[in-house]
């Protein structure tokens, strides 16, 4: 397994995700946004942060950067792409995933650990979550309020492309357990081919019991397989 983490100006979880990949023995390379092409990789990670300050729309400008064309090519050829937080926003802006991430419903940046239900474990990113349906992960974002039109949403649900939903400790998915206003409590989605995952929570931040948990590790272990 070989990965590439794309570094945009303003990315700030690039190091964190590289640390996580290396911890789980995935060979990783950092790739500057201005490169023309990707090194050979099985997995491309678009890390969290504030690419270009998130000044226009979160992820919009990164979606226009030089390397993105090759990322799209990689994805269309079936390569794995993981977008975390700002990375998810970039995937949406490039059209690789549908919908939009609006400002959080209370218009505030929100940083805390939340519970998330793993809805779909039948994909490369989550195969190891099989026995653990409710996990804890941190979120830290301004624009994580997932929105899509009825058709798109129905398609996501019908085709089983929603991977994570915000829930409470006992797995209940409802308004109270929805931190940011996302439709259907959506926290992460796949493309129909299931090789592209975009998610708001940060698995790379919970990979060590000393960091208040390690539910994030399971994703990297799944990927390593």
């Amino acid at each position, binding site marked *: 397994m070989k990965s590439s983490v794309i570094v945009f100006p303003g990315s*700030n979880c690039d*190091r964190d995700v590289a640390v996580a990949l290396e911890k789980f023995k995935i060979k990783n390379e950092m790739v500057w946004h201005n490169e023309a092409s990707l090194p050979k990789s099985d997995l491309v990670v678009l890390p969290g942060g504030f690419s*270009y*300050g998130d000044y226009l729309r979160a992820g919009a400008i990164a979606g226009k950067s030089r390397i993105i064309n090759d990322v799209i090519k990689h994805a269309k050829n079936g390569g794995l792409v993981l977008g975390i937080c700002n990375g998810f926003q970039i995937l949406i802006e490039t059209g690789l995933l549908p919908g939009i991430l609006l400002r959080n419903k209370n218009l505030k*940046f929100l940083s805390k650990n939340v519970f998330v239900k793993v809805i779909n474990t039948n994909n490369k990113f989550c195969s190891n979550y099989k026995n653990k349906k409710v996990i804890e992960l941190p979120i*830290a974002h301004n624009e994580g309020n997932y929105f899509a039109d009825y058709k798109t949403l129905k398609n996501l649900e019908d085709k089983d492309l929603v991977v994570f939903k915000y829930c409470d400790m006992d797995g209940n998915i409802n308004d109270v357990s929805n931190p940011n206003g996302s439709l259907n409590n959506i926290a992460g989605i796949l493309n129909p081919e299931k090789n592209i995952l975009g998610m708001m929570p*940060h698995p790379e931040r919970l990979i060590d019991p000393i960091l208040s948990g390690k539910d994030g590790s399971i994703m990297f272990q799944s990927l390593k397989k």
Partner: protein
Amino acid sequence: MKITQQIVNKHGLNSEEYNKIIKLIGKKPNLLELGIFSAMWNEHCSYKSSKKYLKTLPTKNKKVIQGPGENAGVIDIEDEDALVFKIESHNHPSFIEPYQGAATGVGGILRDVFTMGARPIATLNSIHFGDHKHYKTKNLLSGVVSGIGGYGNCIGIPTVGGEVKFNSVYNENILVNAMAVGLVKKNKIFYSKAKGSNKPVIYVGSKTGRDGIHGASMASAEFDKNTEEKKPTVQVGDPFTEKLLLEACLELMKDDSIISIQDMGAAGLTSSSIEMASKGNLGIEINLNKIPCREKKMTPYEMMLSESQERMLLILNSGKEDNAEKIFKKWGLDFSIIGKTTDKKDLVLKFNENEVANLPISALSTEAPIYDRKWKKALLPKKTSLPQNYKSFKIIDSLKKILMSPNNSEKSWVWEQYDQTVMGDTIQKSGGDSAVIRIHGSNKGVSLTIDSSSNYCESYPLTGGKQIVAEAWRNLISVGSNPIAITNCLNFGNPEKEKIMGQFVECIQGMKEACTYLDFPVVSGNVSFYNETNKKTISPTPTIGGVGLLKNLENMMTFGLKELGSSLFLIGKTSGHLYQSEFLREVVGTKDGPPPEVNLFNERNNGFMIRDLILKKLLNSVHDISSGGMLVALSEMCIRGKIGAKIKIPNKNISSYEYLFAEDQSRYLVEVSEKNKKEVVKILEKNSVYFEIVGKTQKDCLDLEKEFNIKVEELIEINSRWFKSYFNEN
């Protein structure tokens, strides 16, 4: 332009100072030169009222690598590692424009830290607002918090601690103090002292605009009705550019290109260039046509005094310019060679081929005025008799009232707006006694705390100054770390008034005593005077940022209760000092009397005892007892651990109120497992540390024998209610 008396005054200089300038430079200054003097000689840059007293603080010990005098202090945290940290105020700008004022405050303090070669690993903040019912408070609070978050979240440095206080003394003069902490290898620290003449002077970062011109003078002037006029001087922060600047600087710092480096903070290009030259005992020559400008037709005066953010000044080794330029261009930043160092010891400015200013560096720096201001000693308030009615308040109602008050409510509404976990090393987030950050790639950590206690300082500055240092120390002890050093931000009123100057002098005296006794030196800091509006002054508010080391993170302690049936020990003596307590303020409504005295011997003794017991793994949880007293501390332990407790007041000569709500110092509440109880008792007795066993942990409820019984769930609800209802969120 002829320099009139009026122009001199507008620059914040009095006629005596103006005459001194003429004498020092042997000519009448032109307007540009006057502007430069006004920036360098004002309180903010020259420390003219405070220097005499700051010098008395202890600033050295084995652990201190760099004390005050640089962009930030540096301490040794063993192995190859050093920690760089400092605190700074951004009070006035935040009052005028809370979001941008607070944001640029964070940006500024981060630059102070990465200027020294350190990668910032955490920020903290201390923010004070007026009465929550004051019509401005809500906007100021939400603006400041989102500004701090907006900057820190974007640049990707976790905000891991802070404090939020409300008090009507800040109604028209809020305080926003930001602290930044960075990590550097001991052999890769960068300083601001220039070395060698004829070296290239480089400008990097954002372009210069007409931002904040006279910002430095503004920070040193009392607010009044004319503040309106000064408004356009607020700066807008650009955290995205700062992130690029951070990465570019750290990239350039990998080799030996840089001789010295200095951020452009208050008084921008003026103070940064002069400071570098002054420390290196050199001169500097700048061609102002080379300054990257954002706006058209900027004058030398505007360029020299602009406080545009996200800029740095570097002196490079000759021949390193091209490589440096490549790096800054890669990060999309401006890079311009604007001048050179000289051995003439003057500041020479050129513009359109003309020399527009020529001033001796020494006149601007070492010869700046220093004042020995008159000051008045504070009287120790008398212990008047407590209000007759205080026992008529039920204990449980009093507890609820304190836990629900804005000052004692849980502050997650605030800290959830800050990214606390980015960088992947936050081991203890906001909400504990200290934050704990792992040193990347290792198993050690640093503990960080920030504290102030203006009520105590207002009541009796000497004790207040001592107390706040002790409290920072206690917070670091409580997480199992070894306290190392502090930084301080001294927020006071107008030093030209004897009473205010007295508060300053005596707070420093108290701080000095505590720092010396606890071997807890001051390595950096900042003074903010003139925190007054329309003659109404704030309470003296020294803010202390404390830093400690945890050699092994496995020994880290937290304060949430951990298990049922364990014993609760109260360490330290309770004499029942209720004056200045939250109980009297929030419940009874009196503010009289002296603050609790700090016995530094007990402070150190109890603290070291706690630390040793933690290292011996004999404690389950530890919480220091501070505002609100023992019962509030215990409630917080229950809330955090979601476990109850049953306590009983040991037969005492003091009332239950005094026992439960007194704010006597140097005390801790600790939880001890049944299996460790004997051992702990033995150690405490052997070391003559005073303690009492007050009760046991239990499920779900907090009980005080014969008095009350309350569900922990209810405590949680009460303690987390205030912010949400204040902002109509549910």
